[in-house]
């Protein structure tokens, strides 16, 4: 009888979403709702995910593989960060459509989950609880980066 009140078991995909700092405060039902909105993309090693200066429309979550983030520096490129499964990047695109400030490229063959800004905005209107949980996680993430910047630590994945 008490099984009715038990949370449903999470699928491996939902567990991977739950491991991300962006979604770790979501309940299984909320994770399912988010999962329905996310798109799956597969990139080959060395394929560009997005370019520096391109308008940002979505946040990317690394489900498997690695990606490398780099910025134009003089005539060459400066590596900013290397991200592996569970990390996310392009988070500023969830807030506005300002140009991306770095290029992202797949380091291995990788699988990404894509969270589109329009879906996030729609979610804020239809599901404010999920919206505020993600917004809070996003604010903490941006805040941490700001603190890192103020203490002179290197800036990672600020896209």
């Amino acid at each position, binding site marked *: 009888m008490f099984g009715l009140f038990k949370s449903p078991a999470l699928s491996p995909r939902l567990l991977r979403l739950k491991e991300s700092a962006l979604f770790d405060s979501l309940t299984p039902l909320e994770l399912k709702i988010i999962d329905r909105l996310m798109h799956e993309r597969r990139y080959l090693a060395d394929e*560009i995910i997005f370019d520096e200066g391109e308008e940002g429309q979505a946040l990317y979550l690394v489900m498997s593989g690695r990606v490398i983030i780099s910025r134009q520096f003089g005539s060459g490129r400066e590596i900013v960060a290397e991200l592996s499964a569970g990390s996310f990047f392009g988070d500023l695109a969830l807030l506005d459509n300002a140009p991306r400030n770095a290029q992202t490229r797949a380091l291995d063959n990788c699988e990404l989950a894509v969270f589109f800004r*329009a879906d996030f905005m729609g979610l804020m209107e239809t599901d404010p609880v999920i919206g505020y949980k993600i917004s809070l996680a996003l604010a903490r993430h941006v805040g941490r980066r700001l603190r890192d910047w103020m203490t002179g630590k290197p800036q990672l994945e600020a896209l």
Partner: protein
Amino acid sequence: MNLLPTQQRGGPVVWSGIIAATCVLLFLLQQMLFLAVPFLLGIVLYYILQPPTQRLVRMGFSQNAATFMVGAVFLVLVTLAVLAVVYWKSSPATSWQEQLGIYLAGGLEFVRHTMVALEQQFPLLKQVSLADTVNQRMSEFTGDFIQSHLTDILVSVLEWLPSLLLAPFLTFFFLRDGLRFKKFLARAVPNAFFERTLCLLHEVDQTAHRYFQGLIRLTILDTAVLAFGLWVVGVSSPLVLGLIAALLAWVPYVGSIVGCMLVVMVASTDAPANPSVAYLAIGVFILVRLLDDFVFMPLTLGRSLHIHPLITVLMIFIGGSVAGVAGLMLVLPLLGVVMVIGETLGRLITDPRLRARHRNAIALRTRQASHDLT
């Protein structure tokens, strides 16, 4: 909120393509009207039923269960409404054919009275025997045209019924698989164009959503205001008349004229000895149409499509000449959707960096697929 990347409007080439594509689509739709009309109704129903379905999904129901529940409740409500209309007057004094005849006669009598009054007011009209000419024309019309064509019209309406039954089926599948279909479409898009195509899909959905929700709001507003006006004037069944006139107004121009004729027929039958009621009803109708065009429409539909008024009016005429009444009805939503697709595709195709990235991705795929081949 507009999410299209960098709002640059398309140039003359893109716009010529948009108008040409809209005309071709209208022509094709006219050829497949039996499918286009239920499809359109299905979309309208989808946008009405989507919010409660989403709410149920958020409460923890599966997509299937939520769709079934909302569909069942909607069917029950429609059945109850139909039963209420059927049993509202369980034993009417006159059949509907007789009622139609009475209203038609009332309308004709009103026109005759108006013509005679005009002749008395302006002797010139009497010299050209306006009343006699109009009377003769109307007798020919009612005597020959209606007798010979009424059966055809009724039969063609009945022929439409089976295809209209498609609408609820389409709505069910739109509700159940809409999101899956969007993901399916997005999966077919190459990585390089993915983000912008997502924007395009979202904008098409939003355009259609805004248009149909605007149309529903407009119909409710029109019905309420016209019903209130007709009630004040003293016309019978103001709510039913208001609703029919508001639904007819979905067809630009033609719908308004038919709606006005309907109102005049009922008003002149209600008070045959007092033509001022019919005149007042016409006044109310014109006032509501003006309110609709200058206040309600900009508040509901006008905001939804972001199309220049000149192009809107031109396209309504083109739609009417390409596909008749169906063209008048469908041209604006179709133009809205084609405009979004055309402008975005124009930007995607002309972006050399995106095309280069796509070529690079193909080369990487080919290299990876053939790395162990000699």
